[in-house]
């Protein structure tokens, strides 16, 4: 296995009474895309900022490329090697796209050709546009460009697609996929399930400061999602209650659909037989489980578009 770029051990962050990060441990390996998936307030930004050396930790250890985030002499070494897109990225309003990226680049001993980065992010048309005149999606892309300009080995992207329209979101996804091809290590945070599933080699599901599950999307799905899911459109409480008596893996989603988790083929036919017996004439869909199902299973809730945890 590739050597760890990030090593976190029983990390704790306490804000007064609130334990925002509650003793988490994990590793991120070279050249992987690692995603922190969790709802608002889960402790994603707190953890990332501790790793970026801009927030002190309460206890535990965190190492980046083997350097301690708490040791002053190491911090310099870490900052030289990482690139970062902070949550709610902003830049100097009156400077152009190029000037802003260059400014960040100039903070390092050397940096990549700014025009090349601009090309990489498809920002050529906007090279000389002032930052304040850009749309949210373009601003975010400038932020990603700034995170890449120093040619870092490790890149932190804190909610890179939050608030973007679908097209802008796909653009950012393409950039991240590209980074992986370039052999970069990417540490991503998100509250979009499909984003984590699509982009990440490994996902850590984080909730209330704790890592609830960690692994590749396939591993997580296999472990928590089951083989298939039967979705009964527009089911009612009564039907759900009846099914629940026979199968313990039944739940109702926010649209009022009944979800039945199926772990093997035999179980599938048994459920189908039951439904036939009950003469359930509704739309039945067979779904392959996703991270969303994993999340539901683990936390008993889902994350809304706004990032809120809904039970």
């Amino acid at each position, binding site marked *: 296995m590739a050597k760890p770029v990030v090593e976190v051990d029983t990390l704790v962050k306490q804000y007064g009474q609130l334990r925002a990060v509650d003793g988490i441990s994990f590793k991120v390996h070279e050249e992987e895309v690692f995603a922190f998936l969790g709802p608002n307030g889960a402790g994603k930004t707190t953890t990332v900022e501790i790793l970026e*050396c*801009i927030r002190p930790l309460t206890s535990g250890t965190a190492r980046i490329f083997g350097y301690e985030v708490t040791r002053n002499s190491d911090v310099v070494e870490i900052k030289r090697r990482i690139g*970062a897109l*902070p949550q709610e990225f902003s*830049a100097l309003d*009156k*400077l152009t796209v190029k000037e802003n990226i260059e400014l*960040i680049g100039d*903070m*390092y001993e050397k940096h990549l050709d700014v025009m090349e980065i601009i090309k990489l992010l498809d920002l050529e048309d906007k090279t000389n546009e002032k930052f304040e005149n850009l749309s949210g999606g373009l601003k975010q892309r400038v932020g990603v460009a700034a995170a890449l300009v120093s040619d870092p080995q490790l890149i932190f992207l804190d909610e890179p697609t939050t608030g973007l329209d679908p097209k802008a979101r796909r653009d950012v996804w393409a950039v991240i996929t590209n980074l992986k091809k370039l052999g970069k290590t990417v540490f991503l945070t998100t509250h979009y399930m499909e984003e984590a599933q699509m982009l990440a080699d490994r996902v850590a599901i984080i909730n209330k400061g704790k890592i609830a599950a960690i692994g590749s999307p396939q591993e997580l799905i296999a472990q928590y999602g089951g083989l298939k899911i039967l979705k009964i459109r527009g089911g009612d409480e009564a039907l759900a209650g009846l099914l629940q008596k026979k199968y313990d893996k039944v739940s109702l989603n926010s649209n009022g659909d009944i979800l039945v988790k199926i772990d093997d083929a035999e179980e599938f036919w048994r459920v189908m037989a039951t439904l036939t017996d009950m003469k359930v004439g509704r739309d039945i869909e067979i779904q392959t489980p996703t991270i969303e199902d994993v999340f539901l299973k683990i936390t008993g809730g889902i994350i809304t578009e706004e990032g809120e945890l809904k039970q």
Partner: protein
Amino acid sequence: MKAFTIFKAVTKNWIRSRSGLFFSILFPVLLLLVFGAIFSGIGGTAQYSLFVQNLDTNTSGQPTEISTAFIEALNSTETFAISDIPADANATEYVRDKLGPLGGNIRILVISKGFQDDLLNGTLKVRIGIIYDTVTYFEPYMTDKQNAAISQGLSQMQQLNASIPDTKASLTIMLDPADQSAAMVKSIVMSVVNAFNYELIGAENVVEFNEASVTTKRYSNVDFYIPGITAAFIMTNGIIALTATTTEFKRRGIIKRLSLTPLTKIDWVVGNVLCQTLLNLMLAGIMIALGWVVFNVRVIPDALSIALILLGSIMFSGMGMALSGFIKDVEAASAIGNAIAFPMMFLSGTYFPMEIMPSYLQTVSKALPLTYVSEGLKHAMIYQNPEGTYINMAIVAMLAVVFIIVGAIVTRWKEK
């Protein structure tokens, strides 16, 4: 230097921002125009009434040559409407009578008996001192014989020197503490005195003192406001504008973005201070140029005043950076900035002369950094008194270092 990169970026950002331009340059300039118009009463020269009692008369009861020359010099500033007080009158009573029940400002200048003699003797003593020093300096290069002759001459000179009483020609100025223009009147009289002294010591022949050569720059009221207003805006730019900008940078996460790079916070602080300093130099230049063109002022900033403007900028920008370390949002920044800037502006003699303030407020003003910038600038630009500038400059330089250090300490480069 990364500080320089930051300086370039924030300066560019500032120059392209209209509101920044307005508050940091245009607003001060407008204010100068308003104040200038009020204080100069464009069109006519405002004159201060001044009563002069000349007690320095010769044996035949005529005013002495030098005291007359001094009054002429005062007159040549064209700032005073001078009235004479007879030598035998009680000055204050005489002026009260003259002003009548309606009152008016009592401003009396008394030229003491012996003004001319004292001045000449004092000058002679200074000149002997100068000659004495000069000769001693050349001593090592002389032959023994020359040396003997010189030392004889020197000892005679020293005797003469000792026989001249150590006196200073005395002038007494009486001003009403309630008089708004008291400080102004005093400063104009002082600048005439300075010029007068200089002329006397520097003249070829002390006795043949030439009246016509006694010219001082003719200062207008606006001249006296320019150093003060310049100092005041260097301050507001530092502790209001810079504090607001920095707080806004902080709120928008721009400081956080930069703290993610290897940039150190001292470079960040210095870069911002440099930007502010450039801006203030521009501002001072524009204010003074405007003074020349519109108000016909005479003040000329010399190297010392430029240096002081620079140091003042550094000090107040440092103070602004230090303040923003404690402030969370932009509203608080401007509230706190204003709460500090405005009292400071009024308590340090920018708009009102300090002399009219009660003595405890005068003590307070000694504790305000702005006092030293504006006093120093007045010494440099108006009184042409380098010593006065140096002292103020030293204090400002010291405070500048202190504030920059505090600014760098309290600037948050890490979250909590």
